[in-house]
């Protein structure tokens, strides 16, 4: 059994871009289990916060604490970017890549890649260059590649933006399976319906700050902040 890296805490996290504060200060605790959805209008800092938690953004101030040293914690995390990054390789090699990095044998990595391709319905594309896939197929591939090392925590930045209903449902199924097998999920989305379907916990952001953070049931029954109430009513929140 691997050592758990969670719970994790972010304290007073601030991210600046060209001297301007785009996030924070933010405090957040990520518990061991569950599915957290980040809601908020464009530019509210969802992407920045996810990237900061994953260690891709330098914190101007504040700190992140995992249960294990950072280098060790990093190996147990995965990130699915808003625009999927497709390596200039076949679908099979894209899937196998994270395993090859940590020294898994080629045969084992390929076998795992083929299993995953099966699960996400991309088996017939195994030998095709990944950049040739459709948008939805790329998203599924990026998700499978993120899950192939069975991370303890998975960050997703609007994985279903631009996807149709069927592709969205496929991705949600994979996410629920991953959650069931113990992966902690943190996801940004604009889709309130999706948030209701998936979330255990909702974090509502505006202008780089956390306005509200609550259990999903509580949040959707009656959010504490007027801005979140507006959002749920279907009004435009700016």
């Amino acid at each position, binding site marked *: 059994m691997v050592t758990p890296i969670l719970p994790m805490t972010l304290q007073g996290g601030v991210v600046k871009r060209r001297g301007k504060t785009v996030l924070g200060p933010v405090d957040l605790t990520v518990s061991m289990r569950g599915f957290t959805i980040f809601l908020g209008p464009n530019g509210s800092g969802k992407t920045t916060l996810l990237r900061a938690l*994953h260690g*891709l953004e330098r914190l101007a101030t504040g700190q992140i604490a995992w249960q294990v040293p950072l280098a060790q914690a990093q190996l147990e995390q995965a990130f699915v970017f808003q625009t999927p990054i497709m390596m200039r390789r076949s679908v099979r090699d894209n899937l196998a890549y994270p395993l090859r990095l940590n020294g898994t044998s080629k045969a084992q990595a390929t076998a795992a890649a083929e299993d995953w391709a099966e699960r996400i319905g991309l088996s017939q594309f195994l030998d095709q260059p990944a950049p040739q896939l459709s948008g939805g197929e790329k998203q599924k591939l990026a998700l499978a590649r993120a899950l192939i090392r069975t991370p303890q925590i998975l960050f997703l930045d609007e994985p279903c933006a631009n996807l149709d209903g069927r592709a969205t449902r496929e991705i949600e199924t994979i996410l629920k399976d991953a959650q069931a097998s113990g992966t902690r999920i943190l996801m940004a989305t604009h889709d309130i319906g999706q948030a209701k379907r998936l979330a255990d916990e909702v974090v509502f952001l505006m202008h780089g700050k956390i306005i509200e953070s609550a259990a999903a049931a509580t949040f959707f029954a009656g959010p504490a902040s007027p801005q979140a109430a507006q959002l749920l009513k279907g009004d435009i929140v700016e």
Partner: protein
Amino acid sequence: MGEIWEGLVAGFWLVITLDADLVAITLRSLHVTLTAVMIASAIGLPFGAWLAIQRFRHRRATIALLNALMGLPPVVVGLIVYLLLSRSGPFGVFGLLFTPTAMIIAQVIIITPLIASIAHQAIRDVWAEYHDLLLSLSTSKWQRIKTLLWDGRRALMTASLAGFGRAIGEVGAIMIVGGNIDNATRVLTTAIALETGKGDFALALGLGFILIGLAVTVNLVIHTIGQTEREGKW
């Protein structure tokens, strides 16, 4: 007009019949240029890749210098190599002047900056594309370099081919350091210059056909690689 026509026919005939002189000169050209391309690639490709991912103090200046070196006039390179290799020069003792080795040295100096610069741009593009993913997967520096070189391999091949195209058609520098000696340092370009001067258009044109053929082939291959890269087919 008649003279040119006759020359064209005769030149074409020399190519068809694989004229001994013509073949010898062509092979020497290929030997010199391919050797130069291999050496320049061995230096330029890793250097370009390194420039693309390594942050260091004078990085921008180094890139600017590299681009400036790309514009070095070959004749001046020839002159400098000549001075260095001549009997009274610092490397005179090796007796390399007027040998194919001297020509290879000159060509390496001319095309290494070109190859490094193209490689730098290519790897920089892949790095920009892969940056977040490679960081997210907590790759080591060595794993990153390997991945970028491998996934950028077509672009890197383009860099080497561009170096080949430049070197095979170069005349000024190798004329100076090679001396255009028959059966020793005479290559396609220098032979064309000589034969044209002598008025022997048949041989000059025959050599010209081969040179054009090589140049066109290289450019076609570069184009094809670029195409497959853009369309994401490989």
